[in-house]
């Protein structure tokens, strides 16, 4: 298992090539091949989980190869507590999404090949420790995403796809400039994130500010933080179910992951200065704004999309606090939101496949028509609301605990927003699943085995992490405490010079 991260990253790509070579007529074969290609990464992820050293904050499973030596570009892979959770999440969600995509019957080969390419890009982003490599993987995700939304999406897919692409590219090019500025700031020039982190003390405050802003805008678009969020509702509504799951489950996390991986350790001074306005205030605003928008929606998918904006606000608030609880809560929330939102989108997809619309007011009394479905749905809804005993509760409480030590006003606002969340969730629950039965839909079949296979593993994780959060917290804690310490202990260069 020496090159496990490389295998995890590139096996899906290999799968994509194989899928492209399969005969066009045999859709079943294409589907199962794609599914098989996501299995080795999943098994390796389980192996990683068992063998991950939980006592250290150092990078593990490192690989290092020279790529373009004349420019000091390297192929460096490695994971720590922060990235391992994201790698696990990606490896878990990809097979689930492939299963959820079995209903696709237009351009099947293209769809699954692009999906596997996307898988490679996502895993690569979380594993790469060379900034250049990180950037390549980051951008590689854009192309399949553009086509997956644009070709297989809903009625306004073209608009949504190009909007997503343009927004993200805008963020990327700013990131590219910041990346090059960092590269030339070190002598010898390097993209190696570990060296960039080590040298973080030698960057002046002004430089850190500008670089931080460049990186932050790129990441904020991905989170998406207000006011860069407008691409998200469009992309989510138009994307096919599985792509929405990936979008909300993994892609949004890349924004906050990037901030924690790059902005925090490499630009700690700027992080100290910016955390309040750019992360805490904006994050709280995200929580409230997302919840209020969600409440106004009549389309289920749009509602879930806005709830994502709201829930990602907790991540931003948690990491801004720079307290052990807050930052642990933030990363745990990233993982939990990944599983919970994935469930919500899958559930909406199940109804959409049957009724071919997602109007909240167009249903009623589904609980009596689809009982098994309603059972699983309740777990997801209550998890999203932050009910004790389910995973999201723990992470939100940790975030709020951290936030209380940091800024009481913001904490009060963020905590009250939980009421709004309960409001829109319960209101949707009432309108769709309870109340008088809509006669039109009495014949709807309950969830199929395949749909259950996508939902049950996620539901199990949601419950387990609600009772035993240490399953994830143990992984992330050492790395995050070290990261937190790095940011807190950073002092300006001028001050370093005055030390005795």
């Amino acid at each position, binding site marked *: 298992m020496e090159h496990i991260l490389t295998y995890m990253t590139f096996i899906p790509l290999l799968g994509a090539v194989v899928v492209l070579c399969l005969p066009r007529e045999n859709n079943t074969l294409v589907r199962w091949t794609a599914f098989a290609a996501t299995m080795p990464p999943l098994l390796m992820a389980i192996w990683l989980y068992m063998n991950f050293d939980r006592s250290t904050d150092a990078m593990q499973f490192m690989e290092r190869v020279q790529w*373009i*030596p*004349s*420019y000091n570009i390297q192929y460096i892979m490695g994971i720590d507590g922060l990235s391992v959770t994201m790698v696990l999440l990606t490896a878990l969600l990809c097979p689930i999404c492939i299963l959820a995509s079995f209903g696709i019957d237009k351009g099947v080969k293209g769809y699954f090949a692009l999906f596997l390419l996307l898988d490679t890009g996502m895993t690569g982003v979380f594993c790469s420790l060379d900034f250049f490599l990180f*950037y*390549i993987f980051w*951008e*590689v995700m*854009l*192309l399949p995403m*553009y*086509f997956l939304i*644009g*070709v297989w999406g809903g009625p306004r*897919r*073209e608009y949504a*796809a*190009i909007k997503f*692409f*343009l927004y993200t*590219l*805008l963020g990327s*090019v*700013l990131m*590219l*400039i910041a990346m*090059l*500025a960092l*590269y*030339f700031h070190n002598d010898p020039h390097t993209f190696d994130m570990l060296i960039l982190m080590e040298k973080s003390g030698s960057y002046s405050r002004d430089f850190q500010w500008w670089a931080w802003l460049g990186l932050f805008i790129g990441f904020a678009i991905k989170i998406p933080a207000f006011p860069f969020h407008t691409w998200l509702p469009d992309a989510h509504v138009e994307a096919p179910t599985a792509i929405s799951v990936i979008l909300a489950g993994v892609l949004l996390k890349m924004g906050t992951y990037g901030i924690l991986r790059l902005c925090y350790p490499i630009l700690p001074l700027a992080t100290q200065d910016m955390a309040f306005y750019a992360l805490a205030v904006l994050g709280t605003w995200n929580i409230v704004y997302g919840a209020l928008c969600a409440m106004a929606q009549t389309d289920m998918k749009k509602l879930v999309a806005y709830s994502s904006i709201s829930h990602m606000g907790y991540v931003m608030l948690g990491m801004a606090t720079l307290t052990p609880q807050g930052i642990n809560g933030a990363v745990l929330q990233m993982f939990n939101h990944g599983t919970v939102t994935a469930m919500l989108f899958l559930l909406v997809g199940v109804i959409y496949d049957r009724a071919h619309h997602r109007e909240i007011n167009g249903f009623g009394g589904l609980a009596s028509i689809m009982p098994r479905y309603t059972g699983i749905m309740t777990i997801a809804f209550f998890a999203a609301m932050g009910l004790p005993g389910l995973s999201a509760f723990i992470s939100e409480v940790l975030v709020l605990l951290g936030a209380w030590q940091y800024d009481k006003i913001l904490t009060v606002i963020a905590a009250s927003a939980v009421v709004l969340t309960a409001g829109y969730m319960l209101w949707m629950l009432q309108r769709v699943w309870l109340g008088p039965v809509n006669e039109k839909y009495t014949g709807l079949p309950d969830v199929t085995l395949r749909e259950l296979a996508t939902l049950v593993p996620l539901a199990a994780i949601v419950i387990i992490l609600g009772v035993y959060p240490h399953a994830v917290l143990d992984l992330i804690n050492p790395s995050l405490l070290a990261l937190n310490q790095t940011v807190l202990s950073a002092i300006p260069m001028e001050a370093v010079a005055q030390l005795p």
Partner: protein
Amino acid sequence: MNLSSVESLAYSLPELILVFATVGILMLDLLITRKRILGELALCACGGAALASALLAGAEQGYLFNQMVALDGFAIFFKLFLSLSAFAAVYMSLGSRELDNEHPGEYYTLLLAAATGTFYMASATNLLMAYLALEFVSLTSYVLTGFIRASRRGSEAALKYLIYGGVASGAMVYGMSLIFGLAGSLDYATIGERLLVPSEANGPILFIAVLLVLAGFGYKISMVPFHMWSPDVYQGAPLPVTAYLSVGSKAAGFAMMIRFFYVALSHAGAGGVWATIEGLEWPNLIVLGSIITMTLGNLAALRQDNVKRLLAYSSIAHAGYILMGFVVLSDAGLRAMLFYIATYYLMNLGAFTVLMMVLNNSDREDMEAFRGLAWRGGALPAAAMAVFMFSLAGVPPFAGFIGKFYLFAAVIDKEMWMLAIVAALNSVVSLYYYARIVRTMYLDQPLKSDPVMTTDWHSGAFAGVLAVGTIVFGVYWRPLIDLADKSLVFFRG
């Protein structure tokens, strides 16, 4: 070394091959009836010239033809590149339906003659030689542009090209005469030495002279405000000629411009950093040119419905990007330029090849000709086109991104933030129109009336090779950057 005319011939094999082929085709045209052989002969000549250029790589550096042209790493790089450009143009012409039944003998003669001219543009080290080479390429290009006599648009384009070209080269030759008056020499290296000594000469007159010379270069590389001819000419000319103008002739223009500005108007310092001669801050002028060129090119391309014209504006925008490497006065910038020009070859010629396949198939070159291309038998051309478009937009993992990366790196190393940010925003804007073509091919459904795309192996193979190259150099570009690095040798006596 400094060779006389006769001795120089031993080092002029690429040019000799082209010249003999030019004359040979002209004569064979009278003898044979199967005219396709003429094109194939031209193709062999271009291949031979490329091979001969590559073989020159080991030769001793020096002056040829009594200090008229230089034989150095820089010249050899461009000779190789320009013969490959001519090769592409000939290859595309062989597959073009537009050019069927035109006069192939004259056509290939002119094309090879233009190619010979570009070789001397890249290697001239004397103002007179540079001017002659530039005019030679221009004159042949005018005829090539209007080569299809039945095309009114072509004739109009040729006339416009001629008039703009005449004005630009007139301005240029006037500027050159001023420089000759100031420096007392036409030789680049001598001009550089004489102007290095601060004197009254390095005042406004020198600035005006350089500005006038810039008109000539700017016209060749279509830099704003000397770009006005290019959209019309690109649209009106036969497609292979357009492709050649946008890659070959433009690259020769850049080569000539680099040699003039770096050898005659700057001097190399330590560590790959160059300095301008005192009192002449030409980089500031060209920074402005670069910014305006890329912005104008991209904004104008947004609204084009004719894909050929769209690619013309995109080509203007790319000239703006390439100029980013020109203004930083460092080896890193020059290396980035050479690298970008090489990647531009792959992706831009690729785009033109796919466009030609569509044009051959449907006799149309507007956006609608691409509608649903992927779903009506054109899956492979559409995939190749998507690769070229995303590469042109500068998205990884394609070669275009690496090219842009090096340009950005050179600019940021000099801390020219303004230029970097403008270029970054331009990349985003450009994505919109490149993605529009991809969207039309993939996201739009074909109508019943759209013709089924027939397989054309001749052009398809070429597009395939270019697409593979675009991807390979996007992932492993070390050989290409090393080549660019080695080619940064200017012989100056």
